[in-house]
C-alpha cells in the first residue's frame, strides 16, 4: 500500500457516480492547495443517502438528486446551513455521431417517428434523476405518452449514454456533461430549462462529520479554481463562494 | 458369549435371527442373500435392527426394548466388510492404522504386514490396488484395531490358496493365543470346518439350524445346505508320539491308532481329527502290503440307504463313530450288513492340516 493511501482521509465525500471525473479533478486541485487528503465514494445517490442514514463515515454528501438530499435534510442528517446547490446541468437529446437525425425541440415533439423501430435511451424515469427530468421535459412537449412504451430504461444516465454510443438506441436523453465526454455521440438538441425542474447538484456537510476540513472542502467546490474545472466538464456553476463562519 | 436375537425388515426380506454362541469361531453359513451380512451389520452396529437384542459377554450392544444402542465406535469390533470399504483418500498405511490402536512399529503390526504381504504397498492409494490386495488391507485394518470381537465377511474370497492358508493360520492363532471371538461368513465349507466350532445355518433370514459344526455336518437333513460331499466324523485323539524320520505323528484314540502327517503338538495333547467319509474305504479282511497306513477294526452300525451311486455307512471303532462312503456296487459286492466286523482304511495323506484342529 502506498503511503498516501495508508494515511487516514481528512475528508470523506459521498458523491453521485456521475460526478466522478470532474469531482476527481477538483479533489486533486483541493489536495494540492490544502495538502489534505480527500477520498470520494462514488455510488448512486440513493445508496449513498441510505448509507448516511445508517451511519456512514461521510463528511460531505454531494448528490445528483434533490429528493435524496431533501430526505436526509428531513432526517436532520446533514447540516442544513451548509447545504448549497452547487452545479447546474442541462438535459440534451443525443444520437450516435454518425446519425443523420435532426430534431427541433418544440411542442408536440414527434420523437416516435424519429425513433423508427428503435428505443429512446433514458435513465429510469421512475427513480433516477436524469430520467425524472427527461420525463418532465417530454411531458412538457406532449411527447411522453407516445414514447413511454418505447423507452430503454437504463439503470443510470451513464448506461443510457452507452446505449446510444453503441448504436443500440438511435436517441437518448442525458446530461450535457455526459454527452460532451462521449465521442461516439453528438448532441441533437437541448431541452430548454423551462421544460423541466432545475437540474441542480446539491452538496452539504453531514451532521455526523467530525472533520475540520469538511466545510473548507465544501467551500472549495465553489471557488473560481473549482469553477474552472466544473466548466471544463460542461457544468454550470451556481453558487457564489460561501463566506467562512 | 455372543447373544443375537434380532428382527429386521428390508423391503421384501425379513431377517429374524436368534442364536447364542460361546465358540471361539462361529460361522454364519447360508446361500447368497440369506442375511449373513445383515447380521454382521447389526452386530457391528452399522445398521440398527427394528427390534431385538445383541450382547457380547454380558455387555449389551443393542436392546431395542430398552432403547439401548451402543455406537459402533464403542463396541470394539473389528469388521472386515464384504466389499473392503477402504478409505479411498488414505494410503495403505493410513488405512491400516486408522484405528490408532496399534502403531506402525510394534512387532505385532510388522508381523501382520509381513503376513499379508503389504510391505511394498504401504504408500499406495486403494485405487491402485488389485482385488486381493484390497481385501488384504481390509483384513489388516480390522485386525490392527485390536478388537474384542472380529467379524469377517468372506474375507478370503479373492485370495490365492497360499495366502488364504497363511491368513487362516493367523486367524487360528488369534483364536488360540489372543482368544478373540470371531464370527465369520464363508461360502467354503472347508474354511468353516477348518476354523469354526459353531455354525449358524441361515435360510431366508431365519436360523435353520445352529450348533457344533460337526453335529450340523453329520445331520443328513442339512446335507443340501452344507454340501453332501463333506460328510464325515470327528475323532478325539491324543498325540502318542512323533516319528521324526518319516515326519508323521502317531495318534491314539480308544478305537486304535492313527498315523497322520506330522503336527506340532506335544505327546499327550488332545486333537480333533476330521475323517471325511469319502476318504474312508472298507475291507472285510485286513489288507496287507498296502500303502494305506491306517487300518481300523470296527463294527458296521448303519447303512444309510440312498439312491444314486453312493452310500454312506457308519461304523463304530472303539467308542468312536466314523463314516465311510462307498459305492452301492461295493456294498452289494461285499454284502455289507449292520453288525458285521469290518476294517476301515484311512489314507494318512488324506488327513491334511485342514482336518486337524486343537481341541
Amino acid at each position, binding site marked *: *500500500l*502506498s503511503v*498516501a*493511501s*495508508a494515511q487516514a*482521509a481528512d475528508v*470523506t465525500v*459521498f458523491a453521485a*457516480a*456521475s460526478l*466522478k*471525473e470532474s469531482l476527481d479533478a477538483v479533489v486533486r486541485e483541493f489536495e494540492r492547495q490544502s495538502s489534505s487528503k480527500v*477520498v*470520494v*465514494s*462514488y*455510488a448512486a445517490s440513493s*445508496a*449513498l443517502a*441510505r*448509507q448516511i442514514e*445508517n*451511519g*456512514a*463515515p*461521510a463528511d460531505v454528501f454531494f448528490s445528483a438528486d434533490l429528493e435524496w438530499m431533501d430526505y436526509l435534510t428531513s432526517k436532520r442528517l446533514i447540516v442544513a446551513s451548509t447545504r448549497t446547490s452547487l452545479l447546474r446541468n442541462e438535459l440534451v437529446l443525443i444520437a450516435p455521431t454518425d446519425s443523420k437525425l435532426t430534431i427541433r425541440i418544440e411542442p408536440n415533439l414527434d420523437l416516435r417517428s424519429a425513433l423508427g423501430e428503435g428505443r429512446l435511451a433514458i435513465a429510469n424515469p421512475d427513480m433516477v434523476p436524469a430520467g425524472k427530468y427527461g420525463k418532465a421535459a417530454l411531458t412538457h412537449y406532449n411527447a411522453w405518452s407516445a414514447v413511454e412504451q418505447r423507452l430503454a430504461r437504463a439503470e443510470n444516465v*451513464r448506461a443510457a*449514454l*452507452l446505449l446510444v*454510443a453503441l448504436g443500440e438506441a438511435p436517441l437518448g436523453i442525458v446530461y450535457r456533461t455526459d454527452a460532451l*465526454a*462521449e*465521442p461516439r455521440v453528438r448532441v441533437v438538441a437541448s431541452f430548454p430549462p423551462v421544460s423541466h425542474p432545475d437540474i441542480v447538484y446539491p452538496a452539504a456537510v453531514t451532521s455526523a462529520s467530525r472533520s475540520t476540513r469538511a466545510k473548507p472542502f465544501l467551500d472549495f467546490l465553489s471557488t473560481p479554481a473549482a469553477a474552472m474545472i466544473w466548466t471544463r466538464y460542461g457544468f454550470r456553476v451556481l453558487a457564489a463562494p460561501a463566506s467562512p463562519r | 458369549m455372543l447373544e443375537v436375537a434380532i428382527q429386521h425388515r428390508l423391503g421384501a426380506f425379513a431377517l429374524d435371527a436368534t442364536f447364542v454362541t460361546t465358540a471361539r469361531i462361529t460361522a454364519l453359513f447360508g446361500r447368497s442373500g440369506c442375511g449373513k451380512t445383515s447380521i454382521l451389520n447389526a452386530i*457391528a*452396529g*452399522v445398521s440398527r435392527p427394528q427390534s431385538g437384542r445383541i450382547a457380547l459377554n454380558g455387555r449389551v450392544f443393542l436392546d431395542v426394548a430398552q432403547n439401548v444402542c451402543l*455406537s*459402533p*465406535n*464403542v*463396541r*470394539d*469390533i*473389528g*469388521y472386515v*466388510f464384504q*466389499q473392503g*470399504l*477402504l*478409505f*479411498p*483418500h*488414505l494410503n495403505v498405511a493410513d488405512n491400516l492404522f*486408522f*484405528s*490408532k490402536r496399534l502403531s506402525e512399529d510394534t512387532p505385532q503390526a510388522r508381523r501382520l504386514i509381513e503376513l499379508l504381504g503389504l510391505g511394498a504397498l504401504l504408500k499406495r*492409494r486403494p*485405487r491402485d490396488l488389485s482385488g486381493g490386495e484390497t481385501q488384504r488391507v481390509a483384513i489388516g*485394518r480390522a485386525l490392527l*484395531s485390536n478388537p474384542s470381537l472380529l467379524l469377517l465377511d468372506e474375507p478370503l474370497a479373492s485370495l490365492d490358496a497360499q495366502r488364504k492358508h497363511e491368513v487362516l493360520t493367523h486367524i487360528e492363532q488369534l483364536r488360540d493365543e489372543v482368544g478373540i471371538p470371531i464370527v465369520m461368513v464363508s461360502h467354503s465349507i472347508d474354511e468353516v470346518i477348518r476354523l469354526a466350532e459353531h455354525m449358524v445355518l441361515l435360510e431366508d433370514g431365519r436360523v435353520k439350524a445352529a450348533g457344533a459344526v460337526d453335529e450340523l455336518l453329520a445331520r443328513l437333513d442339512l446335507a443340501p445346505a452344507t454340501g453332501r460331499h463333506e460328510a464325515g466324523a470327528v475323532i478325539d485323539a491324543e498325540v502318542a508320539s512323533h516319528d521324526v524320520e518319516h515326519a508323521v505323528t502317531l495318534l491314539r484314540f480308544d478305537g486304535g491308532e492313527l498315523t497322520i502327517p506330522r503336527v506340532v503338538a506335544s505327546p499327550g495333547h488332545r486333537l480333533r481329527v476330521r475323517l471325511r467319509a469319502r476318504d474312508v474305504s472298507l475291507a472285510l479282511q485286513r489288507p496287507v502290503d498296502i500303502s494305506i497306513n491306517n487300518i481300523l477294526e470296527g463294527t458296521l452300525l448303519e447303512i444309510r440307504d440312498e439312491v444314486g451311486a453312493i452310500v454312506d455307512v457308519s461304523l463304530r471303532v472303539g467308542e468312536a463313530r466314523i463314516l465311510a462312503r462307498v459305492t452301492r456296487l461295493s456294498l452289494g459286492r461285499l454284502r455289507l450288513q449292520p453288525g458285521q466286523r469290518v476294517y476301515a482304511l484311512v489314507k494318512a495323506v488324506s488327513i491334511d492340516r485342514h482336518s486337524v484342529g486343537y481341541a
Partner: protein
Amino acid sequence: MDNDALLQIVGLSMKVAFCSVLLSLPLAMIIAYVLARYDFPGKTIFDAIVHLPLVLPPVVIGFALLLTLGRNGPIGSLLHDWFGIVVAFKWTGAAIASAIMGFPLMVRAIRLSVMAIDRRIEHAARTLGASPLRVLVSVVLPLALPGIITGSVLSFARSLGEFGATITFVSNIPGQTQTLPLAIYTATQVPGDEAQIQAIWLSLVAVALSVAALAASEWLSRRYNTNA
C-alpha cells in the same frame, strides 16, 4: 489510476476475498453436511434461506446488511456496544457481504460432495473406533474436498465480482472498501475511451486473479484427488 492505487485495490480485493472464503467455510461445511445428511421439518425453508443471497438482487442483500449490521441496526449496534466492532463501511463489512453472497454457492458445492460419499465408508470408520467427530474430520471432510475446493473457488470468484451488496453495504470508499469490482464499476460510470480502457484494464486484473485462484484450486484438487 497509478500503480499504487491499483496495488491497493488488488490487495484489498484479495484480502476481502480470502477472508470471505475463510469466514464462510466453517459454517458452510456444517450447513452443507446437515442439508446433505438430515431430513427435518422445514428443511426446504431452511434451504431457501441459505439460497437467499442468490435469489434476491445483491442490492437488496446489501440493504438488508446495512439495516442489520449498520451502526443503528439490531446486530450492528450490539456489536458496537458490546465489542466495539464496526463492520459497516469497513473492509470487514465487504468481506461479510462477499461471504454472504458466495455462501449458497459454497454450501451447494460441499453438499454435492458430501452426498456423493459412500456412507459405508463412514460406517467402516465407526467400527474402527472413530467417533462421529473424528469420522467428520478424517473421512467426510477429506472425501468432500472436491466440493470444498469448488465451493471455495466459487466463493472466491464471486467475491472478486461482487458489486451490488458491497457498494450498498460498505459504500465505495477508496482504500477502505473499494474492491476491484467497485473500482471497475466506478470506471464504467465515466464516459469516454480513457475510462473504458481503465475498466478493461481492471477487468483483466480481476481475470488474472481468478486464473491464479483456479490454477491453485486445480493443483489442490489434483494433489488430493481420490478418484482416478
